[in-house]
């Protein structure tokens, strides 16, 4: 049984060496979180590693919710230092953090991301939709002649005679995506509230949330997966199809795609920054303050993220499509984050 002995001792050696390795301190920063914040964090991480020669931070795209689960898992080297989020931390997530001993968190609002509705440049029509029209085209249930019924519209011209007589077809993200959450909240809910039936019917916010959150499933809205590049390719191929994705993807593909104007406003860095473009969302990241000064280089990394080079307009993050904060807000933010100001429990 020499063979078995060999195997057993090999296993033992492997086990000892792995435990030894875990005992070593972690020297790379670990970042998780939203796929929307991911490209920006990537850019900072690369710049940081190049500038300082420190071990490159490990940036993982887990989605906002998944990132919060990992981030709030506890304090210590096996838990992430920073998480990115395409919405503010929820009260339930803050609770989870508190329970696991993550009590001192700094919140950083780094800028905004516009959600764009885009269409191929081969489509000649000058698209300009109201949020109400977007809702009527894509909502699961809509009012028709004073009745709340399943969405009967199949052509844009049925919603508004001024729109072209083409089939409604939009590719968008699946429900697991932060982009979808943001689109439902910012476009669908707002569009639903705009409708005469809802506005005059005396329905409140809860009713809207309950009845206007579902996208239609009878064909015109197609869930195209988390990969925004796939949506871009699909709508390049079909000039009548629209796509829903983050502004950075429209920005990178401006030669083939054009943004659909919402309420008469074209999505652009300027209109998203001054809030005139209605479908934009804030991007955050959260720092575990207990890890500062413990994980090597974490402070230096945060300094790089907060530097004018990265955040200010014209900085390298805005080159990637991040819509930066106004000057004064940015300075307050830089001060707060560098001082490690602890966040309050979110409401609700």
């Amino acid at each position: 049984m020499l063979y078995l002995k060999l195997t057993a001792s090999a296993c033992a050696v492997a086990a000892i060496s792995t435990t030894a390795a875990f005992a070593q301190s972690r020297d790379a920063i670990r970042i998780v979180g939203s796929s929307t914040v991911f490209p920006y964090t990537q850019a900072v991480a690369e710049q940081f590693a190049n500038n300082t020669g420190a071990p490159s931070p490990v940036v993982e795209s887990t989605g906002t919710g998944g990132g919060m689960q990992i981030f709030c898992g506890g304090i210590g080297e096996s838990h992430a230092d920073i998480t990115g989020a395409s919405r503010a931390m929820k009260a339930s997530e803050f609770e989870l953090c508190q329970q696991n001993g993550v009590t001192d968190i700094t919140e950083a609002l780094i800028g905004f991301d516009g959600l764009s509705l885009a269409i191929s440049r081969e489509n000649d029509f000058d698209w300009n939709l109201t949020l109400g029209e977007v809702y009527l085209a894509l909502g699961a249930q809509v009012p028709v002649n004073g009745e709340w019924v399943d969405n009967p519209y199949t052509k844009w011209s049925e919603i508004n005679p001024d729109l072209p007589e083409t089939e409604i077809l939009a590719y968008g993200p699946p429900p697991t995506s932060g982009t979808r959450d943001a689109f439902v909240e910012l476009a669908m809910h707002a569009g639903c509230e705009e409708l005469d039936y809802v506005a005059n019917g005396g329905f409140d916010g809860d009713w809207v949330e309950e009845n206007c959150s579902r996208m239609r499933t009878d064909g015109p809205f197609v869930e195209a997966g988390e990969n925004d590049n796939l949506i871009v390719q699909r709508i390049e191929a079909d000039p009548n199809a629209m796509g829903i994705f983050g502004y950075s993807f429209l920005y990178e593909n401006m030669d083939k795609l054009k943004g659909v104007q919402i309420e008469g406003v074209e999505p652009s860095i300027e209109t998203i920054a001054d809030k005139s473009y209605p479908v934009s969302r804030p991007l955050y990241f959260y720092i575990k303050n207990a890890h500062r000064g413990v994980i090597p280089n974490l402070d230096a990394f945060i300094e790089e993220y907060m530097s004018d080079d990265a955040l200010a307009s014209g900085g390298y993050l805005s080159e990637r499509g991040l819509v930066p904060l106004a000057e004064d807000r940015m300075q307050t933010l830089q001060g707060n984050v560098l001082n490690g100001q602890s966040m309050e429990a979110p409401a609700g």
Partner: protein
Amino acid sequence: MTDIPSGSVARTTMDMVRGSLSRRHRKQFILQALGITAISLAFLMLFILLASLISTGHKAFTQTEITLEVFIDPEEISAERLPRGNFDDVLAAALAADLPSVDPNDRAAMRVVGGILSNGAQFQLRDRVVADPSLIGQTIALSVPVSDPYDQLRKGLLDRETPESLRRLDDTQIAFYDRLIEIGAITSSLNTGLLTNADSRFPELAGLKGAIMGSFWALLTCFLISFPLGIGAAIYLEEFAPKNKLSDFIEVNINNLAAVPSVVFGLLALAVFIGWFGMPRSAPLVGGMTLALMTMPTIIIATRAALKAVPPSIREAALGVGASKQQVVFGHVVPLAMPGILTGTIIGLAQALGETAPLLLIGMNAFITSAPATPFDSATALPTQIFIWADSPERGFVSRTSAAILVLLSFLIMMNAIATYLRSKFERKW
């Protein structure tokens, strides 16, 4: 005339045979035609896949570079402040010397000029100066990659006919490019960075080194765990275990394990290795252990098949001359079964190399700009790197994704070729 009845029977049988002949020929022909159609369709699919990968991917195997005469200005870069210094300004100044239309004091114009170069150029220059500080004050020739839009322009992926406002490069920038082409500063070379660089946000700098090293460490771990355990389990089950209900039950379970979707193993690893044992996320070690869980059933099944294929006469002869059971197994049966075992193992490892889902769950899809030096460092693997690149908004990653798939495919073909070679070289016919 007694044979008339039998003759008539024979005739009717022959008639039946003859009558059905054309029908049977037709059936045979249809079967063959269907078989050929199936094969041609399969080949067509394969051809379409490869053609589309190569047609988009081949562009990533070359990289546009620019050769500059760089004067390392001691006013911008001083030996005391290294590794800090205004390397980007030095590079922009060197480039502006080739572009007479640019005023070196116009900061906005100089930023446009600096944008021709990849973001990595300044670090390339910095590393050279740090390695040899005596270069300060001298003029050196430097070949650096251009940034992605210019690379796309040279590869014809950026259309000059597009209206200016919609292009990534405006007319001035294209004029700069044309001028640099004219003086012969822009060249195209084999993109070795694709294999020697780690991942990057900038397509022109991004490479597969981190992913290849990550896959290597993960496969090594997978091999070290699954090979001894798999062979040990197979030898015991095949040669030593009593044939009873328990060993039947184990056999059924091993066969089932081989068919379990890999994502399930990923979830298991997430809960057990990372959750319970507190192992690090994104480490190739954990990836390799997860892949070992998947590969082990494949190895066990292949090993058992190879052991079964050794003729009983060998065992009986060895036992007949007085060898112990252990001597029979390790001295005769296992060596003869080795080619089959190795083939099975390599095919199992090739499967593991292409596996994505379990690695996504244990965080091996992180963005890391350095290659792992040990199996404990965070890393990506080849399939997860493809996954990350496919999801990147920059245009340059489209061709790099295809190129990465081609690299992965070539590794797989290589492993399968080794397996085929081993089999044909060492397999014994009984």
